[in-house]
């Protein structure tokens, strides 16, 4: 049986700061606009691990977290504050494939997961 699911999330303007506080990932590309721009980025970017965490949230969907057995993601493009992300997953048996798109600007993450 094939199951498809979609959800949307708007990345808050200050989310990279909040995630930095929670994760202690204070890499300056996430919190300092000047530093990010000097390193070839359009501005501060969201931590990839945060995009991954939001992907896992989409998959677990308020259920028992122990159902998620594995997750593997590739980070394709940076996520910026105020971006709107669209999470699309397709589940066949225990195997899930997931794509996260930025509403304005193509894919930001692709991955696979297993659910029990």
């Amino acid at each position, binding site marked *: 049986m094939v199951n498809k699911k979609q959800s949307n999330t708007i990345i808050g303007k200050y989310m990279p700061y909040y995630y930095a506080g*929670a994760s202690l990932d204070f890499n300056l590309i996430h919190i300092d606009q000047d530093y990010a721009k000097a390193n070839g980025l359009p501005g501060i970017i969201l931590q990839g691990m945060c995009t991954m965490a939001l992907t896992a949230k989409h998959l677990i969907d308020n259920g028992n977290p122990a159902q998620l057995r594995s997750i593997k993601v590739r980070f394709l493009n940076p996520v910026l504050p105020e971006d709107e992300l669209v999470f699309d997953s397709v589940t066949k048996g225990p195997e899930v494939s997931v794509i996260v798109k930025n509403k304005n600007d193509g894919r930001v993450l692709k991955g696979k997961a297993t659910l029990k």
Partner: protein
Amino acid sequence: MSGDNIIRREYESDYEVSYEKVKEYVRVLDDNNPYYTDREFVKSLDGGHPFAPPTFAAIYCQPALEHLYFDPEFSKLVPRLVHGEQEYHFHEPVRAGDIIHTNAVIDKHYTKTNQAGTVHQIFEIKTTSSNQDNKLVCTGLYTLLIRGE
């Protein structure tokens, strides 16, 4: 090549998972799953403590990885570091009150040349995390890319 001399280097850390920290983490994600936030609900399931989200692995593995980032041989590469891929396999669930021991080892180091001819370095870091009962909770594979100049 710079980087080859740190291959197989290992880093260790212990991390105590607290309910308050889990609540902070899920608040950032706007994740209201009762398995993480509702102590009474979880107690009614099996009498145990609230769960940590699976991706909380990023938090309890971080102290071991920080030892890597501050390794003098590696720290000079950090300004050009990009997180390329991430993989986790989950075993025993992690719950508030657990003490997680993590070992991180630099498993592979190689280069990749993109279409523009820029040579990027890739480091693959393997993590193994176990709880206070010596049960495996998570294995991870961090693929870190150091952008070429």
